């Protein structure tokens, strides 16, 4: 402790610098040390302590004169430091908070976008713990995907789309899309549309199938699927009582004889056509080209959603026809038109083949074609048997058995293939590969190389690292706000607001060391750990069950990234406080108090979080009580801490005030360097992920949603076609 006389003298001499408490304390401390040295020297010459002190005081002269000189010498420095403090208060701290909020909001918005795209698309991701948020309703009741693809009510857009492309050499593609998606209204217009399509492509079964579906929808009432539909046929040709009776008896019936006959005729023509092509992939590519170039995950998911909604929109039409064929045959048989019934039923195989060939681009379509073929074979056997066509019935039964074998064989492959596939996916698969689950269930291990899965896996890593950085940013922001509040509390509590210094950043070396050793190094270590199979080997992908481990790692990294820089910076602040003569608590006492406060805050946070977020129908009063309890716990913790800390209030106040700019700088650095770099990495790996998003990058690789899907669906379609064409004279094993 300095001599009170010297302390007062030095304080008077440095009084002009009080506007900058750090400078004031620094100069005061310097002058005190000088006076003590002088007094010691005099004491060594033989004077008593009192005499030495008195002589040193006298030699110092008038403190007022010294004060004027010191103020003049430090005026410029004070101004500069004042400006710096102002910059911290008005610029750096608000900028840090704004950046943290921006990054936080950016993450929230990105997650919302991802969830929206995932949910509106046909593919669905498993619910991820990090993305488990409520989905915001889309505007106007229709998704962007629906609006883009011309969902019901947007036929005019599709017409314009066709108009825009009709002069191109491959205009039939756009015409097919136009014909497929134009909502059928008036019969004349619809039929004329299909006839024009026939002229454009005489060998495509598409337009006859569309007409068959159009007529049969109006011509017959098929119990098997109509009962599941909310809308009743508007053209009922029977009274309500008869209709109800038919429903009760589970019977199909003819609603419109003319439409019934026209529908069957179109069906039989379609079955004679050499191919069916709906041109969905071509349309997908055209539409995706019209979207902005994808950059981040949500953009790619948007592209997937657009593609899925176009590709799968027509599957219901094929299903309607699949159910109509046996219904038509049964109705004809009931009327005694056996030959016609057999002729209609005979369309099942050629139509199944057409569907199978058209399903070689997207696996879902291939699987649907398989389902329709199987259903038709089963129904075909029943219908043929009832009509007495035993050979055809036997053939249908044989094909039914072979179709089932075909699917089982495709899924299981050779013995051990399933295990090898799962091992491959467990080791190398990515989270987004779950988007392709149906595809992966059909691949053979040799079809897939681990290198192809690498970009997807790296994308996972980057996503989780982004999340880690965002979590650290949130924690740093809370720490920043916490230190600001604590600083204000200490200023108020000590009632010596002007003497608690706000240390302008600790020396650049200390900051650099804190950033390198406290943030960059732990993140690098974690980065290496999570990528080196021999050490960490963490894979987020398929079936890996890594969530608890990831949560633990995340917590560890967050605590480390907070604790290490705080410890290093606090070391610098303690050193500076010692220089300024600010009373310091013992390190051991400080740690134990800090630990108790920290535990109190954690407990309060957990209680508050449980009270706010606990699911279920909990009374608001109970939730409020929980929040109050949390506030009480934190209050007790604060009171305990302030009781023990009061003596060192100047130090704690300085620590709180001086840590806030450091936190602010850390936030700014992380937001402006780490986060953009990670976003860049995300874009990079997405762009290189040919497997999951290959259709964007490799247009020449063939039609298909993804590279692996092209391989798998073509393989499956080939198997299906081979089965349907196989010799049925030999019974199925």
């Amino acid at each position, binding site marked *: 402790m300095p001599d009170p006389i010297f302390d007062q003298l030095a304080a008077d*001499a440095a009084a002009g610098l009080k506007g900058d408490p750090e400078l004031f304390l*620094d*100069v005061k*401390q*310097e*002058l005190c*040390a*000088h006076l*003590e*040295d*002088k007094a010691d*020297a005099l004491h060594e010459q033989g004077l008593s302590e009192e005499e030495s002190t008195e002589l040193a005081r006298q*030699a*110092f*002269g*008038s403190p007022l*004169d*010294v004060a004027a*000189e*010191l103020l*003049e*010498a*430090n005026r*410029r*420095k004070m101004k500069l430091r004042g400006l710096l403090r102002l910059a911290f208060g008005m610029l750096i701290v608000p900028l840090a908070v704004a950046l943290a909020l921006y990054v936080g909001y950016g993450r929230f918005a990105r997650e919302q976008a991802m969830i929206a795209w995932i949910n509106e698309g046909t593919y669905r991701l498993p619910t991820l713990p990090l993305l488990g948020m409520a989905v915001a309703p889309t505007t106007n009741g229709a998704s962007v995907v629906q609006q883009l693809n011309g969902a019901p009510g947007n036929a005019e857009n599709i017409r314009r789309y066709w108009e825009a492309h009709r002069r191109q050499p491959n205009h039939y593609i756009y015409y097919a899309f136009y014909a497929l998606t134009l909502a059928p209204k008036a019969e004349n217009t619809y039929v004329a549309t299909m006839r024009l399509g026939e002229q454009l492509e005489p060998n495509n079964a598409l337009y006859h199938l569309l007409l068959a579906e159009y007529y049969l929808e109006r011509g017959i009432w098929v119990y098997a699927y109509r009962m599941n539909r909310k809308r009743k046929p508007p053209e009922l040709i029977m009274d309500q009582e008869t209709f109800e009776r038919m429903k009760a008896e589970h019977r199909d019936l003819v609603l419109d004889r003319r439409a019934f006959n026209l529908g069957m005729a179109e069906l039989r023509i379609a079955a004679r056509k050499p191919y069916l092509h709906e041109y969905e992939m071509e349309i997908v590519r055209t539409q995706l080209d019209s979207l902005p170039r994808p950059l981040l995950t949500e953009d790619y998911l948007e592209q997937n959603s657009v593609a899925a909604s176009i590709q799968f929109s027509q599957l219901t039409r094929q299903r309607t026809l699949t159910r109509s064929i046996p219904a038509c045959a049964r109705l004809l048989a009931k009327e005694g038109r056996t030959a016609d019934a057999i002729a209609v039923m005979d369309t099942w195989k050629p139509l199944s083949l057409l569907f199978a060939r058209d399903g070689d681009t997207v696996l879902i379509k291939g699987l649907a074609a398989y389902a329709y073929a199987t259903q038709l074979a089963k129904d075909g056997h029943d219908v043929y048997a009832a009509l007495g066509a035993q050979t055809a019935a036997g053939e249908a039964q044989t094909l039914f058995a072979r179709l089932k074998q075909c699917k089982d064989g495709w899924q299981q492959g050779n013995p051990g293939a399933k295990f090898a596939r799962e091992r491959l996916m467990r080791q190398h698969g990515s989270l987004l590969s779950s988007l392709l689950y149906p595809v992966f269930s059909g691949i053979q291990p040799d079809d897939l190389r681990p290198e192809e899965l690498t970009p997807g896996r790296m994308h996972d890593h980057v996503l989780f690292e982004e999340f880690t950085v965002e979590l650290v940013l949130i924690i740093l922001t809370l720490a920043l706000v916490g230190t600001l509040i604590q600083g204000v509390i200490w200023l108020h509590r000590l009632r010596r607001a002007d003497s608690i210094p706000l240390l302008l950043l600790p020396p650049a070396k200390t900051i650099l060391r804190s950033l390198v050793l406290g943030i960059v190094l732990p993140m690098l270590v974690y980065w290496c750990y999570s990528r080196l199979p021999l050490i960490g080997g963490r894979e987020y992908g398929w079936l890996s069950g890594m969530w608890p481990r990831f949560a633990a790692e995340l917590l560890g990294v967050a605590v480390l990234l907070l604790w290490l820089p705080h410890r290093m910076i606090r070391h610098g602040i303690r050193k500076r406080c*010692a*220089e300024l003569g600010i009373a310091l608590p013992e390190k051991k006492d400080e740690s134990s108090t800090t630990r108790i406060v920290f535990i109190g805050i954690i407990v309060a946070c957990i209680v508050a979080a449980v009270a706010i977020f606990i699911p279920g129908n909990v009374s608001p009063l109970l939730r409020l009580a929980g929040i109050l309890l949390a506030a009480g716990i934190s209050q007790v913790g604060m009171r305990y801490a302030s009781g023990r800390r009061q003596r060192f209030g100047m130090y704690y106040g300085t620590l709180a005030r001086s840590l806030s700019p450091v936190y602010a700088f850390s936030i700014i650095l992380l937001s402006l360097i780490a986060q953009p770099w990670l976003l860049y990495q995300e874009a990079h790996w997405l762009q290189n992920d040919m497997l999951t998003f290959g259709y964007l990058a490799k247009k020449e690789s063939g039609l298909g949603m993804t590279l692996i899907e092209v391989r798998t669906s073509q393989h499956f379609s080939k198997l299906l076609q081979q089965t349907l064409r196989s010799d049925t004279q030999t019974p199925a094993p």
Partner: protein
Amino acid sequence: MPFNTELVGSTVELLVLKLLTERAMYGYEIIQIVNERTDGAFNWKEGTLYPVLHRLEGKGYLLTEWQVGTSGKSRKYYRLTPQGDSYAREKVDEWHTFAQSVHAVLAAPALVAN
């Protein structure tokens, strides 16, 4: 013999800079060394030295660092920055030239009137 205040004031900065070219020093130490080397002719007060030190620090010629000495006391040491070092040498050279010029005038034999 007490010196003229202006004369003293004009040399404080020069002497401080010269001493700090030798090694880092704290305020009391500078006063002591000046006092010793001038045989007590220069007995600076705190109000003389510290404003000069702070002004030089503000100009970027000096850096400060608190260090604990062998006696266990914490003292603020001043040392020259590279810029301050060049400035110090420049000032010393300037003084030598000045002093030689003054000396040349003072030591020259008086002119005898014809």
